[in-house]
């Protein structure tokens, strides 16, 4: 057992947990945030992607203890003051989700992707970058469209802010 403290979506959470507890288990079971999903057991599907200290991480592949002291953002923490994040809005606008199971991971991966390409994204890059996220429903067509649109919107917002 170890006691870890993780700041999740701005709120400090401390708990004594078994050493083998994964970050995703900490989030789902200890913090009660079930938006982060588990779709596989081999770090392949990306349903579990969250941000740890600002970087996209597969939370099924990190021990909660490794995140001790870290800032974690989950899908539940993405919208600010009731306003959807542009990536969330774009997924809805472009029908980038069907069953919704891959969606939290997709959105968190997409936010990270857009942050890493401030100059913008083209379709080919988006498709390559999505390699770590599997969706069985959408065929990716509308996910790619949504990410491209969100990237364009966020670039516009960044330029307007300059």
């Amino acid at each position, binding site marked *: 057992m170890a006691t870890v403290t993780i700041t999740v979506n701005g709120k400090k959470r401390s708990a004594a947990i078994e050493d083998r507890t994964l970050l995703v288990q900490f989030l789902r079971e200890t913090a009660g945030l079930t938006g982060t999903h*588990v*779709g596989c*057991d081999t770090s392949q599907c990306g349903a579990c992607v969250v941000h740890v200290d600002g970087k996209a991480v597969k939370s099924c592949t990190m021990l909660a203890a490794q995140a001790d002291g870290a800032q974690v953002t*989950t899908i539940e923490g993405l919208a600010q003051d009731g306003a959807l994040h542009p990536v969330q809005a774009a997924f809805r606008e472009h029908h980038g*989700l069907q069953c*919704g199971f891959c*969606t939290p991971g997709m959105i968190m991966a997409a936010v990270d992707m857009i942050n890493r390409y401030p100059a913008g994204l083209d379709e080919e890059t988006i498709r*390559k970058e*999505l390699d770590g996220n599997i969706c069985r*429903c959408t065929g990716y067509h509308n996910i790619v469209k949504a990410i491209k649109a969100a990237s364009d919107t966020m670039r516009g917002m960044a330029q307007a802010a300059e």
Partner: protein
Amino acid sequence: MGAEGIGARVLRKEDRRFITGKGRYTDDMTAPGMGFAAFVRSPHAHAAIKSIDTSAAADMPGVTAVLTGDQLVGDGVGNLICGWMIHSKDGTPMKMGAWRALEAERVRHVGQAVAVVVADTAAQARDAAEAVMVDYEELPAVVDAIDAMKEGAPQLHPEAEGNLIYDWEIGDETATNEAFARAKHVTRMEIFNNRLVPNAMEPRAALAAYDEAEEHYTLWTTSQNPHVARLVLSAFYNIAPEHKLRVIAPDVGGGFGSKIYIYPEEMVCLWASKRTGRPVKWVADRTEAFLTDAHGRDHHTEAEMALDEHNKIIGLRVKTVANLGAYMSLFSSSVPTYLYATLLSGQYDIPAIHCNVKTVYTNTTPVDAYRGAGRPEATYVVERMMETAAREVGMDPAEFRRKNFIRSFPHQTPVIMCYDAGDYEASLDAAMKAADYAGFGTRKAEAAKRGKLRGIGFSSYIEACGIAPSQAVGSLGAGVGLWESAEVRVNPVGTIEVLTGSHSHGQGHETTFAQLIADRFGVPTDSVSIVHGDTDKVQFGMGTYGSRSGAVGMSAVVKALDKVEAKAKKIAAHLMEAAEGDIVIEGGELKVAGTDKSLPFFQVALAAYTAHNLPAGMEPGLKEGAFYDPTNFTFPAGTYVCEVEIDPDTGRTEIVNFVAADDFGKIINPMIVEGQVHGGLTQGIGQALLENASYDESGQLLTASYMDYCMPRADDVPSYKLTTTETLCPGNPLGMKGCGEAGAIGSPPAVINAITNAIGTNEIDMPATPEKVWRAIQAAKMPAAAE
């Protein structure tokens, strides 16, 4: 249509919870005192169980109970069943081998459950499951269907001699033989349809809670059809009578067929919750999903097509062996028979067809319906034959199809189906235009300059959706009727709840069903909520599969709406002192035609509930229900064109263009329909290029994780070009046909036909991996090299 009515691209109401992480899936549910189940699974494909020692496991930390098959049988829990009776051509019934939820005597596939541990945490349950000692005596295994039929093959079930489940036929054998006797040309092919794993992203899960005081069970589970689950759990597995069992399918993360069936794990959780006195939760990990979710396809077919001197098809002869795995899953028997062979006429006027299907047991995971269920297998046979036949007789593949299209409707095929409406030439033309077929030669030449082989392939598919007229399927062996139910409840303030027996697990029913109401009453979709997936709320329903929610589920809603509308009009006429026939509904109001008199919809609803002033003899309230039983299947059809470029040095195939032209009849929400097609196409392309459930000779599944089973990812597939044509289905009130499976049905042959077109050979099997394509290119070169 109005801003939110039929035909409008309404954004989805359900999205808000999914994009904010507020979806509620089975694994998100908890119950006080909940324990966790872990299953002990066979590591062998075929073995006798000599003993099971649970004592060490029972002493492990946190363990509540370790339960085995003997206890399950002792408590009277029934065997799993297949619910569709098929008779062999000699009249004998199919041979259903006994299937226990926890096996006690002989395991028949890797991953079969033999015991379950319930413990305080999932990790403790898993640790203890590893401590259960099972003494197995290994038996020889067989994994391939053709091998399983050979003399001396390991035998799986005493009920099924030679592992044969049934030997079934359809069509007129004599007429077909006569057609072949006078054929000018015969095309012959051996065609494999590879075994797939459905892989809904949400693994199967269950949370079962038993209430001792009420003798009542609640099951939250990942189901496409909670009412059918309750019926089967109650009537066949003896879990509890229906009124003592509530099944809830909350948000479900994809199904594709795999969540139709009632599996061992869900029923064991129910049973264990009573046995242990605590709620029991189980969530499959992905490897368990690979080993136990019903697989799809796995057909081996020999097909022959007879042409006359004008290149008209005069006969089709098909012999198929289908691998059903170790046990007969719930609807497994219907997939390679009535969902397969009845579609072998494709879009073509073929006067004589005969098909023989043998199904066999093997030491593999059970096989059942997966997106398309039988229809992809039929389409793959027909469309590869069409392409090959066209090449053999030197005709353009599009023109060969056009020449053989069915042109008048209704059209009775020689294999039961009566196609009600269609225009196959319209979708072929639309697809050729969108694919710029005329410009293909130029593109091919340009690709050749870059050292690439460019190919183009067609697939003109047909499918039967909207399953199905209850009486008809009953006469063919189905154990259930396949109607749908709906209830429309108008609340006193005019908001509306629609209860449906259909279940949404990605299809967007909360939006599209609400669009029907918006269209009818002119009220915003925000004032409508769709209730589904709970046997305590919805009286009964048959669920969602086979693209039936629109054609059957929505038709039931329309019938209920008709009744609500009629009553509302009566009330409005009474209140406005007008003739009932003069009342029209527009923009959320009931109006007296030709006057300025009107009442808002909510006021009529309120009047129905205050009941202060209703027509004489009218009951208060505004709530109506309906059952809709379809009169026929529906027949979506279309043409897909795939264009590929292949690198001859590596054999790697790139899809450079993919066009889908579909006729789905009436479309409620084009955005959602396009999404369904995108997803289906990707699954079909996955089958054609990437996916394969591969067993070694001993029966180990070599592809039991995402490291080994190649799922299509974003950079494996292109963006698609979609177009639609429309002929209305005359059989249901909205003219809908269904769109959920088309993409997965139509795309595999289009991809393979494009590849064979590019490399100049007709011989290649799915998945067309770079290695296989490279080898096919080398093999095609051989004769040339020898010259």
